[in-house]
């Protein structure tokens, strides 16, 4: 790969470390930034600096937050008895968009993945346990991703929480609403059949 003048190559290397950005894209973004008016480029640099300065993680649920407490934890209208456990802050956004959930969240900041050196100790599991009693939580919804690592994390948490006498639920996996059965892949349809429920 061609090596550019020092600062340019530094920028390409930094961009290349971002998720989803390969060497080609890093190069394209770097040259785009070079062409940008100075003000526009500095606005981006500033936005990054401000985010790193001001935004931290909520001390309760580990969602991103501007203070010690995030907006959701600080909202008195939220149901304190139910907590929805997710892997990442962006998953909260996804659940919030549904408008179906009125409880609070807990962000694990990852999923169990020994390959990446992530075990329960690297996740915010202890912090979740510490919340249960003081907040009077009686239901935990396990909302981790439906992949191997997410399922393993859900199973781990389930085994940990069940003996404590809580109601522990796992989100269902199934068919997209508004879709056709014939277009569903076998795996998803199989799961949907497994998780079928009686009409009331």
């Amino acid at each position: 790969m061609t090596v550019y003048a020092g600062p340019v190559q530094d920028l390409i290397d930094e961009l290349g470390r971002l998720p989803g950005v390969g060497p080609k894209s890093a190069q394209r973004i770097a040259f785009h930034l070079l062409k940008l008016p100075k003000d526009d480029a500095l606005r981006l640099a500033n936005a990054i600096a401000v985010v790193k300065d001001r935004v931290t993680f909520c001390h309760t649920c580990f969602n991103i937050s501007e203070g010690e407490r995030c907006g959701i934890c600080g909202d008195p209208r939220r149901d304190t008895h139910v907590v929805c456990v997710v892997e990442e802050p962006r998953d909260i956004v996804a659940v919030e968009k549904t408008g179906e959930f009125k409880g609070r969240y807990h962000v694990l900041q990852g999923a169990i993945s020994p390959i990446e050196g992530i075990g329960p100790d690297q996740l915010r599991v202890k912090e979740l346990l510490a919340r249960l009693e003081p907040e009077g939580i009686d239901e935990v919804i396990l909302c981790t991703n439906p992949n191997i690592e997410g399922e393993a994390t859900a199973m781990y948490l389930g085994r940990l929480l069940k003996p404590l006498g809580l109601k522990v639920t796992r989100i269902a996996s199934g068919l997209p609403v508004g879709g056709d059965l014939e277009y569903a892949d076998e795996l998803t349809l199989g799961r949907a059949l497994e998780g079928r429920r009686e009409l009331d």
Partner: protein
Amino acid sequence: MQLQRLWLRDFRSYASAELTFAPGLTALLGANGEGKTNVMEAIGYLATLSSFRGVPNEALVRRGCATAVVRAEGERDGRQLLIEAEITTSGRGRVQVNKQRLARARDLLGALRVSVFSPDDLELVKGGPAERRRYLDDTLVSRQPKLDAVRSDLDRVLRQRNALLRQAGGRVTAEIDATLAVWDAKLVEAGEALGDARAALVDDLAPVLSAAYDQVAGRAAHVRLGYLAPWREAGLARALEDVRADELRRGISLVGPHRDELVVTLDDMPARTHASQGEQRSVALALRLAAHRVVTEATGSPPILLLDDVFSELDPDRSAALLAHLPPSQTVLSSAAGLPQGAEPELVLRVAGGTVAAADPGLS
């Protein structure tokens, strides 16, 4: 799917090529190293999204290029089907069927099926157990594409579990114990599903295999298959308990489908150690033929037969026997040494220097 046309762009040695196929037998003729196998590999890629030569997908992209494209047009259940697959040197490839992009490349599996015969098949008999496990799994996925998910789940679980065992370094803390229990459960789930599927497949293959051997070798012999999976008796969960100490000491998963063995015996002796080279070749051909028949039986339509330079390795008797007993289905055959005796292709393609041209079937 009945393959009608194939286009290649920056695939292996081909910058650009277009090929037409006959409904019956198409022969690809040309000297060694001209690109016959590459054509086979491209067709095979559309069936399994990987190379049957066992190389990583990056190796399929022409040197100096970033992406390769394989396009195929054909007919399936009376409908025209256009499959387009893009292979990239970095990241995931993309797949379109009739110009509609598939959400997951894996959803393509089953649209086009192949049975590949190649000179490397001898390794099925002579090689290590991994070769025979791959043979079983490839046949399983060809017969029932959704098993590909079980297979890749198992792979992933094993990688995670092995990483955890290595990290434990022989010491079991409460945390390791609780996490290991979760990976055990996942291993049991995927492992038993794959183990059961393989055992069922072996039961289906066994009777077909003996008949196939008799046809290929021209003599009656007892060819038997045995799926050795000692853990299946008491269940994988129990077997894992039994090897726990060993696994922790060695930092690796020691029981499960990834350690099972498919044993092939010829007249009650292991074919791997006791059969002659010629017998081993016949056993390998019979294994491929049996898989082809089992898949045909289960799916109702025969996979495309890809015979990659197999006749160069066979004596005339075996060549003739194989040709005589190939099931009637679309077949693509490649040869560097002209046509084997008894082969009557509807279409002959000459492959030379990265180009393919139709030739008069009479000249060969």
